[in-house]
């Protein structure tokens, strides 16, 4: 052993306490030089060096308890004792890495892959089938040959299926979730806007009409919690404005529409649209709507049943204005009608509230031009 161990101090004494080291690591010593003093049950014993050498590592400190045979220190240069073998050469190397960490058993914070044998994976790859999109019908939900084959056939006859990503994926999730919670009822009506001036800012008028509706029925501007069955009627109207883009549907929020001037509203609207189109809209601008307007009429269609997205309780849909004959005192005239749809969540609101809101909204739209 390259260590100097506590010698047998005799008289059956097995342990001793380190009283004081008389050398330090790095010191050069000669045989019989005093190394340290230890205290046994009987006496304090001085321990001399068994050899010449340089002190390498000290293994115990003053005050430690040590037993006969346990290492006290190592002399420097005792590493690499490859000569101590009857056959062969035993190498030793410097401690490049002083660590030896290990865990009993497995380390399993990683994710698991889906279940498919290598043969099936190979087939899927060959047929261009994406395994992650399949639902397996085999044991423990694993994917079978038939699953892969069917999917490949489908692809061949009906074309590729691509997973939804980004905005489209988000919309699919949101609508699915809404559909599972909301109890939707829709009211439809239309009103004449023949008296509007040309180049009337329709969206602004719709926003004003909505404000009027909320004044008549504040409950439509609220948040409903389906779990706790509680309603929070909000005073500030943060209106979600549905914006259609090549990337999909966005609904940025125009804040506090009830207290802003028309010019301010128009500017805010434009800025939102601009940011959405350029995909620069920050996430928080898409959150927190208390009511939503979907002016789908810019694209087409009259009436619709737009989807209420919790925690909101209502959504207003404006369709494309259309021409229909009107009668005034028995005389025909060309009338322009604006179709309107209101969907509300019947968990939170009743028909009366919805009808009064809609009536107020229509009344505001039919009011004389600004």
């Amino acid at each position: 052993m390259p260590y100097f161990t506590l010698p047998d101090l005799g008289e059956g004494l097995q342990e001793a306490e380190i009283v004081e080291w008389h050398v330090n690591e790095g010191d050069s010593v000669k045989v019989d030089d005093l190394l340290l003093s230890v205290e046994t049950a009987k006496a304090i014993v001085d321990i001399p060096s068994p050899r010449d050498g340089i002190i390498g590592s000290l293994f115990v400190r003053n005050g430690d308890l040590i037993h006969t045979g346990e290492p006290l220190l190592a002399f420097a240069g005792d590493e690499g004792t490859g000569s101590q073998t009857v056959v062969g050469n035993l190498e030793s190397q410097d401690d490049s890495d002083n660590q030896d960490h290990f865990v009993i058993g497995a380390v399993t914070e990683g994710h698991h892959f889906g279940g498919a044998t290598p043969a099936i994976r190979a087939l899927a790859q060959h047929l261009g089938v994406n395994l992650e999109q399949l639902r397996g019908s085999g044991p423990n939900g694993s994917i079978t040959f038939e699953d892969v084959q069917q999917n490949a056939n489908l692809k061949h006859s009906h074309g590729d299926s691509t997973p939804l990503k980004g905005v489209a994926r988000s919309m699919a999730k949101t609508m699915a979730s809404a559909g599972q919670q909301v109890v939707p009822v829709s009211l439809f009506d239309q009103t004449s806007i023949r008296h509007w001036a040309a180049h009337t800012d329709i969206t602004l008028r719709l926003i004003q009409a909505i404000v009027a509706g909320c004044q008549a029925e504040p409950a439509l501007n609220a948040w409903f919690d389906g779990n706790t069955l509680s309603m929070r009627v909000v005073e500030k109207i943060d209106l979600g404005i549905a914006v259609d883009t090549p990337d999909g549907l966005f609904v940025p929020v125009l804040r506090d529409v009830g207290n802003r001037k028309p010019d301010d509203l128009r500017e805010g609207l434009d800025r939102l649209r601009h940011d959405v189109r350029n995909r620069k809209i920050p996430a928080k601008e898409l959150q927190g709507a208390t009511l939503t307007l979907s002016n789908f009429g810019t694209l087409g269609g009259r009436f619709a049943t737009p989807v209420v997205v919790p925690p909101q309780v209502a959504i207003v849909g404006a369709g494309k204005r259309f021409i229909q004959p009107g009668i005034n005192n028995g005389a025909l005239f060309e009338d322009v009608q604006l179709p309107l749809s209101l969907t509300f969540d019947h968990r939170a609101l009743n028909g009366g509230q919805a009808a009064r809101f809609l009536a107020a909204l229509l009344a505001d739209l039919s009011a004389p031009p600004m």
Partner: protein
Amino acid sequence: MHNAQQRPQHALPLNLVEAINRALFQAMSDDHRVVLLGEDIATNGGVFRATEGLKAHFGFRRVMDTPLAENLIAGLSVGMASQGLKPVAEIQFMGFIYAALEQLISHAARLRHRTRGRLSCPLVIRAPFGGGIHAPEHHSESTEALFAHVPGLRVVIPSSPARAYGLLRAAISCPDPVLFLEPKRLYRLQRLPVDLDDVPLPLDRCFTLRPGEDITLVSWGAMIHETLAAADHLAQAGIKAEVIDVATLNPLDRDTLVASVSKTGRAVIVHEAPFTGGFGAEIAATLASDALMQLRAPVTRVTGYDTPMPYFAMEREYMPSVERIVEAAKQQMEY
């Protein structure tokens, strides 16, 4: 140099053979039934000094030099163990253990079983094994697969000083017979911290030495050294390899191996022993049956060739190298 002030109270930097020595010392101090026997182990302290100083401390009655007869050493151990002693016998090299096969397979492994528990055989046979030290023929054997096939006999192989200490202490306390194979190439390779107060390690679990997500490298014994080096190389190439030390071949901790490969989907098994019938085959079969659904690539084995260990002039060509392991791993990443 190690700074004594920073080390925990009872952790010592020890190399593998020193750890073995400490484990024997500790076991013999704790339990008077533990006795050592073997050739050259008493006065000489063992040809690798594994039993150095033990006869001086515990006396000739507990540290016995036997006549030269491996079969006898094993038979004596069976007899002593059957009557309540805890013999720890040394077979000087694994190359000489074959004479003891009969006592180990026909008797040690079976005694509890065939007496329905009336008698048992809590012996430990220690033997240095494996190559890479430029030794004469027969001194570099790696035939652990022969023993792993024997029900009732535990086969335990440490790969670091700390695990050597913990596993040997466990083996000596274990009420079952244990074959403890010591990778001699690692005997003096490195000094690493060994906590002398640590609880003994389990004798039926693998150890995860390094976590990873991309591929699992499985090995034991001295090849752990190359396997860890291969993992380092792979890390530089952006491949995170998990390294598992099997440690106990029998009973085999299949759960850990399956859990790891279920996570990574890829496995390379590394052992020195020849390819055919090597213990890697058992692990590969386990993965094929229990982790098939998660495999992304075939399970491959990097091993010694199907030849007896060549004389040392060609030892290097025979032993699996870091390059071979890295190559095998990279191939798997292509799937």
